[in-house]
């Protein structure tokens, strides 16, 4: 089906070229004011300049530091605590209300507390990220652990599988898709929170560069927009990397299997692992 593919990619390139062309045209014609919004060529140049030096890469590195550390800490805590809570009915019923409450707090609300405790540092960034990642993920882990298919549960009992072996070979794999969904969301949330921590809290990274550029005035707007693009690309990269990893690890699970069998006509956002399905 080479024809179909080249048509699709051709159209996409055409759309991109048209959009960029339109941008440049409007700037050149003065419809877009130079002191409000840079031209396409200026932004592209700024992006190239930043990328050929070290400043873009160090900013990306700093962002990834906060993102990565926070994600790992938050996820590890969520997996551990979620499993413990999920396995015990009383613990689950007691804790679920509190967890839902904390999950509903917009993370931006905690930022001032983070600043007070740690200032505009890496610690502040990853602490915030870990906090934001923990609550939704712990709920997903609980659901996953508790979601054992009754048929699987009965079969396990008949086969006399108990204790730690039951946990490792039955419960954990069965919870894996829920955990995967939770992690997928966590990857995106971690990036947003890290960027907020930089943009508003002043932690170093891509968000901070945007803030600095904005404060420096219209001459620096090209740099600001260049970093906005970088932030978007970072999001794309991280989400994509996660989807690849998920497919690799969870290849066995039915939903993945049937998705491949059904062929490519699934929504791209689902293929990219973005769609949040009502749980």
């Amino acid at each position, binding site marked *: 089906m080479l024809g179909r593919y080249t048509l*699709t990619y051709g*159209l*996409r390139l*055409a*759309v991109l070229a048209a*959009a960029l062309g339109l941008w440049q045209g409007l700037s050149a014609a003065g419809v877009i004011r130079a002191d409000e*919004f840079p031209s396409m060529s200026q932004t592209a140049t700024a992006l190239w300049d930043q990328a050929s030096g070290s400043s873009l890469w160090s900013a990306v590195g700093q962002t990834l530091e906060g993102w990565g550390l926070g994600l790992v800490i938050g996820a590890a805590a969520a997996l551990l605590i979620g499993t413990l809570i999920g396995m015990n009915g009383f613990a689950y*019923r*007691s*804790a*679920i*209300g*509190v967890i*839902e*409450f904390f999950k*509903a*707090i*917009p*993370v*931006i*609300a*905690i930022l*001032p507390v983070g600043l*007070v*405790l740690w200032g505009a540092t890496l610690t502040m960034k990853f602490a915030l990220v870990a906090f934001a990642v923990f609550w939704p993920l712990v709920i997903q882990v609980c659901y996953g652990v508790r979601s054992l298919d009754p048929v699987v549960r009965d079969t396990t009992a008949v086969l006399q599988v108990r204790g730690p072996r039951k946990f490792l070979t039955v419960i954990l794999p069965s919870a894996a898709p829920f955990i995967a969904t939770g992690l997928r969301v966590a990857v*995106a949330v971690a*990036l*947003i929170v890290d*960027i*907020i921590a930089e*943009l*508003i809290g002043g932690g170093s990274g*891509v*968000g901070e560069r*945007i*803030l600095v550029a*904005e404060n420096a005035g*219209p001459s620096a*707007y090209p740099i*600001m*927009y260049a970093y*906005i693009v970088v*932030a*978007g*690309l970072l*999001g*794309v990269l991280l*989400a994509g990397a996660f989807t690849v990893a998920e497919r690799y690890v969870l290849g066995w699970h039915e939903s993945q299997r049937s998705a491949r069998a059904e062929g490519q*006509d*699934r*929504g*791209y*956002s*689902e293929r*990219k692992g*973005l*769609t*949040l*399905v*009502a749980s």
Partner: protein
Amino acid sequence: MSLHSLGGAASPGPAARAAGTAAARALTRVWLFVVLFLIWWFWSAGSKSLYFPPLSSILKALWTQWVTGPARAELGSSLEHLVVGYVIAGLVGIGIGALLWSLRYLRDATSPYIYFLYVLPAPVLVPAAMTLFGIGFTMKVVLIAFAALWPTLLNTLDGMRGVDQVKLDTSRVLGVSPLGSVFRVVLPAAAPQIVAGLRNSLQVAIILMVVSEWEASSDGIGYYIVNAQQSFDYVGMWSGIIVLAIIGTVANVLFVIAENRALHWHYGARAVEGTR
């Protein structure tokens, strides 16, 4: 049928036992809240720390500032931006999602760019929005609407694409026109997923509501918190944080209530499925 009855002692009848169980269940869900609250209260009671004032004074500030006092205006302002921005995001998201569903070439051509905008961390656009729209109502509503529309858009598109072919065949056989099918069949069938998107959009909208008020704003909860922090009014700052927590929770609860009413058929059908 407890053993107690054999001993002649009066055992609670089934109704009383059911009520007892219900009370026990309610208690289970609530005790941890109470315990945590009390811990915070007593641990902070004698606090001399500037940054972590006693819970009692925070709660008092909550009352004097937010319920009866000047911060009500900030609250109203923020909520106004939130509601307007979110409604626009919802309508535009569903509208464009449906449009893309029906125009395959447009969808194929634009999907990577839409994906890019969905994954872009929206707070990153705040400085840009400020340079373009200033710092007033327009900037905030545009920002909230722009950021919040992507989850709804993508989930609408995906939900509509995922509608069962059997339902579509049925609608053709029943004589429903193609346009009629969109409203009578495709949108209702996609509704659970659209609602999931709307819920995600709400979370994004709340975050942007606050973020948009953080820098160089003159009103709103975000402004209040920043202002309080900068004037070392940490009691005020904490009260603002709690207000945000309450807003988040209330929004969630309202959403769940609305969802359960609108999608009662979906949850009913799923519940039955589980038992078949």
